[in-house]
């Protein structure tokens, strides 16, 4: 498939390794990848604060970067940004061109699980992974059944990773409790955010895993800052990095 990469500002500016891994793994899977220029932030820091006016220009700038770009799918390795982009595009532009962009938006896990399923990996990864089930991905994108939900269980990240030889998968206690990042929450509500991050990082470390693996770079950045502050014996990795290593 022809895939346009959507790299939200956090990934583009602070975690390029996640975008590089995403590009590499999509190409190894035989997809043609392009990178539309002029991408910026999805507007989430503003809309999450209630500031829709302040988000408008930013959101439309990002939307414009994808309008008219020829591709089968627009893939993003950041669940929370993808949800925000989808909702904000719809909020600020109700045109058919905008809808065409929205219809092609996929989060990476979702894309690799539902759209162009990856069934086989070539290289073993002998690591123990503690999975980070980030809130927006599981509760708004259906990447996994949330623990509150009593319907059928599913977990797309686990399904993908369990196809890799050698991988051992585990979960922290309170497996899908929020890590406390929450965008500006981490600054406005510093004490509670820090305590949530500390509890989450510790729960991951308690599993004895090598890596905390997730699909949301913002949660991983928060956990990484906490893990290093507390010098916990675990590191963060984006799902794309693990999958890329296995191909």
């Amino acid at each position, binding site marked *: 498939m022809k895939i346009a990469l959507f790299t939200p*500002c956090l990934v583009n*500016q602070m975690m*390029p390794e996640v975008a590089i891994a995403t590009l590499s793994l999509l190409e190894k899977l035989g997809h043609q990848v392009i990178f539309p220029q002029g991408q910026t932030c999805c507007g989430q820091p503003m809309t*999450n604060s209630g500031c829709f006016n302040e988000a408008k220009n930013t959101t439309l700038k990002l939307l414009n970067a994808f309008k008219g770009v020829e591709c089968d799918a627009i893939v993003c390795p950041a669940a929370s940004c993808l949800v925000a982009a989808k909702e904000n595009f719809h909020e600020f532009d109700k045109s058919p061109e905008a809808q065409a962009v929205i219809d092609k938006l996929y989060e990476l896990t979702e894309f690799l699980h539902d759209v162009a399923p990856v069934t086989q990996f070539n290289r073993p990864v002998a690591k123990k992974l503690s999975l980070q089930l980030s809130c927006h991905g599981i*509760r708004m994108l259906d990447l996994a059944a949330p623990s509150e939900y*009593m319907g059928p269980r599913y977990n797309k990240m686990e399904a993908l990773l369990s196809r890799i030889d050698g991988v051992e998968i585990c979960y922290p206690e309170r497996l899908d409790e929020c890590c406390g990042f929450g965008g500006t929450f981490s600054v406005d509500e510093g004490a509670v955010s820090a305590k949530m991050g*500390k509890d989450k990082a510790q729960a991951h470390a308690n599993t004895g895993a090598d890596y905390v693996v997730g699909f949301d770079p913002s949660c991983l950045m928060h956990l990484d800052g906490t893990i290093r502050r507390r010098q916990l014996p675990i590191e963060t990795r984006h799902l794309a990095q693990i999958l890329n290593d296995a191909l």
Partner: protein
Amino acid sequence: MQKVIQTHAKAADIFCRDESRVDWHSKALWVLREKRDRAASSLPEWETLRALGSQIKLHTLNQLPGYLEAFEAKCLSQGVKVHWAKDGAEHNRIVHDILSRHGVKKLVKSKSMLTEECHLNPFLEGKGIEVIDTDLGERIIQLNHQPPSHIVVPAIHMKKEEVGDLFHEKLGTPKGESDPTRLTRAARAHLREQFLSADAAMTGVNMAVASEGAVIVCTNEGNADMGANLPKLQLHSMGIDKIVPDLDSAAVLLRMLARNATGQPITTYSSLYRTPKPGGEMHVIIVDNGRSAMMRDKLLGEALKCIRCGGCLNTCPVYRRSGGYSYGHTIPGPIGIAVGADEDDTHSSPWACTLCGSCSFVCPTKVPLDKIIFHRRRLYAERKSLPYGKSGYMPLVGRFMASPLLLDTGMAAARIALKILPHSLLKPMSGAWGKYRELPAAPGSSFEGWVKKNRPELLVKSKGEK
């Protein structure tokens, strides 16, 4: 009770200073969440019940006047007196009128968040009427001169040793006694005296059944029944949102209420009252107090689907770590923000949330709590009354993010700063982030920079880009 005016973040910061207490509070409530999970998962039809519960409440709220009138007519036909109160003040006046007509000196009350919302206790006490809360948790905090910190377990913030000290002082239990069974026995003996000497009883209402003209009251301790059955005069206060069409719909909600609250299959006592006792009087006071105004906003109105199980508080990672008193409203936690944000003078309660959405998924009637909280923030922004300096800095963030040039050069500078400046210098500049976490390690360039250098053939320019 003196109202403390401080932002949620400030109150939470103070609560968080005693970390072992935060851990204890968080764990005590998480145990309830785990019990809820076990109880809910034992019913294969749980998600069907939730869908039904949501539909029942939405249906009733959409036809509220009809159902309330039907309820009133049925009540009147059964000899129950019905009163209508537009706000808390009117509710309190009505209650006081009834009580003073009967010369009531002592009122026993069973758990009602509505009377808390109307501040009934201080009102009646000011008129010389003694009010005794009879739910154990409510009695504890009443003796401690505190409001509830949780809607189902109102004294959850107190450790058993603290209850022991309080009972020693107020009820004369032995000093140092902290055994829950012995403390409960002492409370029971004390409460029996209150029931026997009360002139009137008042309860909240879990559901009001329109077809029956009946009110349903759920307790685990039987205190509502002890109250309502002893004195001749009984009063029941209910919000307009408590109405359900019939017993079948009440049954759907009753199957979820206790399961979602504490993991019990059902509350120990789920009693229906629909006629006065012989020679007695039964009054129902139906209260609006802002509810119909809230319903004018479709999304905010969905908050009225709530059946007050407290499940959203138990699952909320912020509530568990900041405590009930940090929200600036009678009802704390996600549902408290949804129904009470307007009463928080600091405007900060809608930001006491990471928008994780756990509350919406735990809710037995599918109140879209995270969407309502998100919407509340937008309403504050539109009223230009944002907390935490957001009205000042958000326009700047908006301009910065909307400009690829500013974003690129700004972030490039930040990456360089992270690389070359000592983090001890940067941390104070990064506010709360650096106070609690290490700053991110800075990459050499942005991804876009990397693509330009290493894979320029990937770059495309959109037709839409201006």
